[in-house]
């Protein structure tokens, strides 16, 4: 079964994607890091994983750390 655009619209799901501003921030960060540290960031491994790292893994780790009781 092929999903056509009209069928796809019927199955529109609640937004699971981060807000557009988060994508823009991640893009600017990647651009700056890629420009300065090209061998580290402009490659086939870090490049495709950067988005999930910056918009999911890092915020989750920071959130977990903030939720830990102080002291």
């Amino acid at each position, binding site marked *: 079964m*092929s999903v056509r655009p009209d069928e796809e619209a019927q199955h*529109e799901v609640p937004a699971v994607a981060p807000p557009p501003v988060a994508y823009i921030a*991640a893009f600017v960060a990647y651009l700056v890091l890629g420009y300065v540290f090209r061998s580290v960031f402009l490659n086939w491994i870090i*490049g495709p994983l*950067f*988005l*999930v790292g910056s918009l999911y893994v890092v915020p989750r780790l920071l959130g977990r750390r903030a939720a830990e009781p102080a002291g």
Partner: protein
Amino acid sequence: MSWAAHEFENYFLQKHVGLKASFLAIALGTFGPDLFTKAFVYSSDDPAQFHRGWPGVGFTHSFIFGVVGAAVVLATTRSRSWAVGILVGQWAHVLTDICDSAGVMPFFPFSTEPVTIGMWKHAASLGRYGDATAYYSSLGGVWDLFWLLMLVLFASRTLRPSYFRNVVVPADPRAWGWLHRRLHLPEQGLLLLYQGFCFYGLGRMTAWFLRARFDDKAPFQPVWGGPRYVQGNDLSDAGSLEVILRTSVGGVAFALFLVVCWRLFLKRLWLRGDDPPSVTRGRGLAALFH
């Protein structure tokens, strides 16, 4: 060689295969020709010959390499979605790389004549950074931009969460499920992983272009056969007629070879393969595209 075009065309292909191929397999297929060889290309004595020629690893940029890869995947995993994805992705890579001056041997081993339209110069002899600078100083950068526009104009819906949930995951529930369990990624994380290839393409295209302009200060020469500051490195001095003739003969031989392979074992592999529950295939091209 093409750079970010290989990332953008994944989504364009995804739009046309719909549920009938795994996106992850398409991505692996488009990475495939360079995956194990690119690191050695820049350190070889004759990078263009090594990368695209024979003797060399030029066979990775031939249609038969995609057929072998798809057949191996089909035989070992029985997944038709993965076999189709590998095939379509690898063939797209081969066709895309026809544009640079080194060209590809699409019908290897039946023809080892490189096919090229010489839109920009293959510049691997300048090393990785020099190659990137030359590419983004030529029509190569414009080629990336063209594929980005194709993606935005005709396939932007493939980047939406609803498309990911309703098409991309059902086309390959095993692999996405495995990633979900092994990496502890919820749907949002998997979506970002899926969108990450486009993000990477856009990011590296922009970063390399900016570096070429402001750091290396290379002249921007988006003219046919540019950039002019790079030496020509054509792999063959054959004339157009000779190339067309040899390639046509190679193409016919390759087509016959495919028919024989299909009858001998590929059909059997295909028939014992399986599909995810949401996929039904037609016959002929309808088995691959929707």
